[in-house]
């Protein structure tokens, strides 16, 4: 069960990392195209250090990876992790499909008070 626990911890980290609007925006940008931290910093009304901190949170949650290119730090999106979040939402979707099937059955019954 160690793996299971580690998996849950990792997923919690993903969700916590994505709970911030700036971090979600950073992920969206670098999924489209990798970008340096300084390029990213130009998009936000905050210091370079603050943006760097956001990137570090995303990196810990494995949502982005960082590598050096010359004097710049290049940030790119980690597709596999995003897919995990998508898979979990997919499972929740199945629950709702089940609920709607049951709602359909209830609504198909004769109205209350009507002859059976």
């Amino acid at each position: 069960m160690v793996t299971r626990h580690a998996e849950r911890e990792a997923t919690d980290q993903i969700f916590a990392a994505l709970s911030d609007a700036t971090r979600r925006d950073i992920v969206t940008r670098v999924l489209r195209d990798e970008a340096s931290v300084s390029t990213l910093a130009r998009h936000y009304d905050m210091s370079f250090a603050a943006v760097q901190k956001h990137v570090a949170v995303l990196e810990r949650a494995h949502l982005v990876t960082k590598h050096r290119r010359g004097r710049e730090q290049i940030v790119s999106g980690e597709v596999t992790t995003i897919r995990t979040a998508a898979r979990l939402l997919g499972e929740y979707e199945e629950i709702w499909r089940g609920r709607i099937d049951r709602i359909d059955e209830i609504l198909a019954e004769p109205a209350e008070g009507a002859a059976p």
Partner: protein
Amino acid sequence: MTVISTTPDTATLTLTIVADLAAPPDRAWQIWVDPRQLERWWGPPTWPATFVLHDVVVDGRSSYYMTGPDGEKAHGWWRFLSVDEPRSLEFEDGFADDAETPNPDMPTTHARVDLHGTADGTRMTVTSRFTTLEQMEQLLAMGMVEGMTLAMGQIDDILVGV
């Protein structure tokens, strides 16, 4: 198939599901506000829900539990944020302990239901927004059980038809 679309958004951890129901909004409203109808569909067949309190007014609360295959109980609560009969309903859904006291340390799900009258019935849109995963994992564990039961039921149907 009455599910029109499902839109998961991994960035905001939101799932939007749109379905067409074969009844007018007044009737569709009942499946949400009548606890006896609600408990027939909220929980999967293997984890049926029992609503012991269901006070559908702004700030009103619901208290329910779901009973698992081995008799274990999972308690939950709702708190209504907005109620606009028969158009929309908004509530928080959270976990409670065995004494049905809401657990403030557990994350809640925010749900919004919209019912729009159409020519054939009602278009229902349900938006669920998550904060973290713990609660979701519990729900998912039940969902997987349901999926298996569903599959078993289908196998039974096939066998009867042979």
